[in-house]
């Protein structure tokens, strides 16, 4: 269980929508504290793979194992629901479009799940909200509603909401690609800070600079397979696969080249 390697392990992940094979036998591991970027063209299956990790998009076949426990266990419906809710509490997820709860204040967005699932008191919840929001630089907005926030602020609240459950793994699906360029950096800073705190993270991103500066390892996906993976230096500067090179030539900024 405490093996820092294979903290997250995906074995032979396959996913099909009817005839369309979206994931074709993908296996990968993530170490504890490691930060892995998944890059690749649109439609290559990045989101599908990420969402399979907390079983939001169940795999057709294959296994997801987190800290020694299989996430997508084969259980009778009721037991499975209990099990998966338990597993999901340990995995934070951040979406491209934030998905904040618009009918709840920033404070309640952050504390709803801990209150409901961990039974913490109102006082503890307030403290938790203050802590988590301070962490993402959103303390002054604690009593605002999501509709009163900018995109970058919404995304930072969404990160605080996920962190409030004290997850051992964080998943990011293009967390900054719906943001105005000038707001991207605020969110990136929060993610960098998490990286420094040794959070284990899997990050789907189109921002190559960010991947290069923050991640320990980069996976390049295309057509439902992992074409190539390695440290950012190798993937971005000396990729071995032609498909990787072709993709990067279109997506690397001048700084990187």
């Amino acid at each position, binding site marked *: 269980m405490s093996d820092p390697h294979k903290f997250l392990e995906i074995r032979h992940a396959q996913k099909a929508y009817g005839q369309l094979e979206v994931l074709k036998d993908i296996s990968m591991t993530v170490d504890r504290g490691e930060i892995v970027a998944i890059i690749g063209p649109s439609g290559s299956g990045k989101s599908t793979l990420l969402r399979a990790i907390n079983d939001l998009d169940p795999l057709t076949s294959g296994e997801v194992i987190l800290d020694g426990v299989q996430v997508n266990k084969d259980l009778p419906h009721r037991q499975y629901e209990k099990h998966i809710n338990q597993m999901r*509490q340990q995995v934070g*997820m951040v979406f491209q479009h934030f998905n904040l709860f618009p009918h709840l204040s920033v404070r309640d967005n952050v504390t709803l799940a801990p209150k409901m699932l961990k039974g913490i008191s109102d006082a503890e919840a307030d403290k938790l909200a203050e802590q988590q929001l301070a962490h993402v630089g959103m303390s002054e907005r604690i009593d605002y509603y999501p509709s009163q926030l900018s995109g970058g602020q919404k995304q930072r609240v969404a990160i605080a909401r996920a962190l409030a459950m004290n997850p051992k793994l964080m998943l990011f699906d293009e967390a900054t690609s719906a943001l105005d360029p000038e707001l991207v950096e605020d969110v990136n800073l929060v993610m960098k800070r998490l990286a420094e705190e040794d959070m284990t993270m899997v990050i789907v991103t189109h921002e190559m600079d960010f991947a290069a500066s923050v991640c320990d390892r980069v996976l390049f996906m295309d057509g439902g397979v992992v074409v190539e993976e390695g440290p950012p230096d190798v993937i971005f500067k000396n990729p071995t696969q032609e498909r990787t090179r072709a993709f990067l030539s279109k997506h690397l900024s001048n700084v990187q080249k």
Partner: protein
Amino acid sequence: MGLDFSVVPGFLDTILLGGLWTIAVTVASALLSFFGGILLAVIALYAPLVIRLPFRFFAWLFMGTPLLLQLFLIYFGLVELGIDLPAFVAGVIGLGLHFAVYSSELIQTAIVAVDKGQMEAARTLGLSRGQSLRRIVIPQAVRDVIPPIGNNMIALLKDSALVSVIGVSELTLSSQLAIGRTYRPFEFYATAAVRYYFINLGMEAVLRRIERKTALSR
């Protein structure tokens, strides 16, 4: 003979009491229709077929037949089955269920229209499907149907006059009683109309308040 409104103040008690009964019937039926509407919507969307079907039949019954007939059935008809409800209760049940069916249609549509990302975000945090519906999806759906449900509630206020036929001495029936004694139908029906109008204004004010309060939460 001309109009003579000076007879009206003599029936102040009757008039006030009638107005209060109308408000009581309307508020009680509105609450029943609101919570009943949510419950019916959840059943229609998520319950297994064996439960859903009888409820579908029930909805059809309440939408496809006159409210007047439903009130007769509940007040007079149920007596034969040994269920003898006070007129007020029978009236509230009839009005409440009738409008619950209409509200449920609105709420169903609104539940389906809530962004899928809301359920996903809630499930991702570890909430169960039921918890996510209760705390995330349904509150947003309800918020979205406040304006049309408000219109339904105004219709409910007007239809509350129908419970006069089963003997609830609300606004309309109490006016009729006063008319029986004075033979002044115009004066008392006009007074009744004015009272409905003011209750209506009150309801609209409450609705606008609710809408203002929920404006931030979209």
